[in-house]
């Protein structure tokens, strides 16, 4: 079997706090192939953001990290800061949740891109600027010549997120870490940004880890999904498999507790009771047991480990369930390329009177691929 692009083995990260050591990530193993998209789903405090930062090595000095991160065969945990910095941006890049805070308000848009180009590729001032203009155009920013000299606050939220994507892509990374890239955006803009990411990713055969709290986002955009709870993986499976046969009670709970537009109004939501455990004071056994409707006596004794229940589908649960979500499964089956190309063009595609490309055609094409 060929070496995957990324192999994470028993990664654990903890931070000292006043309440004791917080084990934010606690023994996560995963793999990612070239060009593959992995969705990491979890609520706040599940450790999903810390996980991707631990993979990169982008942690505060107080953090303790154990385990192994192999990227293209190299162990990232053994690299010096200087070597890691050469990797960040060029091999692995990151897109943040809130572009407003991820961009430096006192720097012009272009500088954000050119500084990393000049550092990593040795391009001259002029060449870097040309390349930055090019990148801004690629991420769908109209009138890049004007935008490049503007400050972030002069752009709309969606435009700013496009800029952070351009920054991340500047040095052609092989792996993109997208940390809730659309959570701070309006619904319609969210769709544009997700479409853009899918398109750019396909173009460059770039692998992506898409971190989100929204199972709906993951359904149409990823090849595989990992559900995180309290620092551990609860369930991981190919996206289509997952929505067709959800095995972990937490994943099931997440799916059920979200209001759905295909339900009639005033449908009572089967909420997950209680709250996630305190990461500084974790229970023995299964961390979800206290909130789990299917918990039995043995759940509190030993922590369940990830076990394969079907091809590529692993669950960490003593008493797995079996559930499915028809609409997300349908969405997942369409695959991540089910994106209408016309919808991507942020130009005048919607000019008065012009009809849009019917959304169906490209979907069929994608399924034929």
């Amino acid at each position, binding site marked *: 079997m060929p070496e995957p692009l990324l192999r994470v083995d028993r990664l654990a990260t903890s931070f000292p706090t006043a309440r004791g050591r917080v084990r934010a990530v606690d023994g996560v193993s995963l793999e990612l192939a070239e060009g593959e998209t992995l969705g990491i789903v979890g609520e706040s405090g599940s450790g999903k953001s810390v996980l991707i930062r631990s993979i990169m090595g982008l942690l505060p000095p107080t953090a303790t990290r154990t385990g192994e991160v192999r990227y293209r065969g190299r162990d990232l945990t053994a690299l010096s800061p200087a070597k890691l910095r050469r990797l960040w941006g060029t091999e692995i890049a990151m897109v943040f949740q809130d572009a407003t805070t991820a961009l430096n308000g006192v720097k012009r848009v272009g500088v954000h891109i050119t500084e990393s180009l000049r550092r990593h590729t040795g391009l001259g001032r002029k060449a870097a600027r040309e390349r930055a203009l090019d990148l801004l155009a690629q991420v769908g920013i*109209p009138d890049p010549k004007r935008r490049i000299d503007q400050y972030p606050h002069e752009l709309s939220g969606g435009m700013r997120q496009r800029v952070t994507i351009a920054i991340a892509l500047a040095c052609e990374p092989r792996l993109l870490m997208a940390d809730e890239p659309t959570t701070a955006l309006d619904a319609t803009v969210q*769709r*544009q940004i997700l479409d853009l990411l899918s398109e750019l990713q396909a173009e460059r055969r770039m692998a992506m880890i898409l971190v989100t709290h929204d199972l709906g986002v993951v359904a*149409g955009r990823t090849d595989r999904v990992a559900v995180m709870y309290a620092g551990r993986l609860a369930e991981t499976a190919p996206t289509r498999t997952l929505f067709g046969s959800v095995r972990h009670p937490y994943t099931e709970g997440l799916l059920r507790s979200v209001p759905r537009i295909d339900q009639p109004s005033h449908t009572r*939501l089967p*909420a997950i009771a209680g709250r996630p455990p305190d990461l500084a004071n974790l229970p023995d056994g299964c961390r979800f047991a206290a909130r789990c409707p299917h918990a039995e006596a043995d759940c509190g004794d030993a922590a369940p480990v990830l076990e394969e229940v079907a091809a590529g589908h692993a669950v960490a649960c003593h008493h797995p369930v079996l559930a499915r979500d028809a609409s997300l499964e349908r969405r997942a089956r369409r695959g991540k390329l089910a994106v*209408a190309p016309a919808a991507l063009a*942020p130009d005048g595609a919607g000019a008065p009177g012009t009809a849009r490309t019917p959304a169906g055609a490209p979907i069929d094409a994608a399924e034929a691929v």
Partner: protein
Amino acid sequence: MAGSGTAHLRDDDDVLLRVEDLVVEFPLSRGRKVHAVSGVSLDVRRGETLGVVGESGCGKSTTGRAILQLPPPTSGRVVLEGTDLTGLSGAALRAARDRLQIVLQDPISSLNPRRKVRDVVAEGLAIRGETDRARVRERVDEMLRAVGLDPDLVGDRRAHELSGGQCQRVCIARALVLEPQVLVCDEPVSALDVSVQAQILNLIEDMKARYGLTLVFITHDLAVVKNVSDRIAVMYLGKLCEVGPPDELFARPAHPYTRVLLSSIPELEGSELDVGAADAGELPSPLDPPSGCRFRTRCPRATDRCGAEEPQMRLVPGNGAAGASGHHVACHHPMTADAGPAGDGAELAETGAT
């Protein structure tokens, strides 16, 4: 969207809250002003939940606050059971505010970090002039229990010692302890985690049933608004686009903007309602909104008429049977299931769906 008019308002006696031609403008320097809300009319029946949905900058929160006279609107009427609140001031307005309460988006920052939970909830009673300490305490504890908190456990804690979900429960208790008739919920679950969201949505439904509340529920989340509402109003850039019952509105959205919104729901991507992502075109500035229909600059169906003439609210055309359901739209070229007004048919077939 971007339309005005009052055709969608209902005439019956059961209407508890009626907002007519609400305008909220914020003056800036050099005579410019932000047109936050421009001529919005809404009504809510007793015991009904009106969902107001739209993206950031559409004026939905400003509308919610203007209903509570926070701040009072620039013009228009807010009539609660026959009383026009916009004319009130001082004590009369304070008394009226008891009947209208609000729950805000960020539960943690909407609680005073230095005050204990019990005091936060009791404050409204004190302002109202309730002086009997034992009775206040009893009332507060009862309210905390009603929202699912144990008063002995959390009563003496402060906001930072509680989770976001617990803080939102406290906010709801604070609002309901005054026994309001109308509760305005401004994005009450947007800042919460998915699993907690469901708990709070359920709680709001429970409280509505238990206390006979009438709700104005403001959110950007289409699935949430569908779940909680009896009637939904879609807003864009300070104007109403479309008003109708949830099932009808989601099954047959008539306004092009509603369609764009629906297309942004991941579950619906690639479905028959999907019209692709919206144009990346910028949201027009509320300082200088477009003439006529405010959505026309981003609308695939816009014509010259849309710039010249502002669409008025009207019953969704060609929707005969559904007319009774009160599905209204403010659009010159609505998207309807069967043939729309002359000239729209061909366009519809292409734009509508797969």
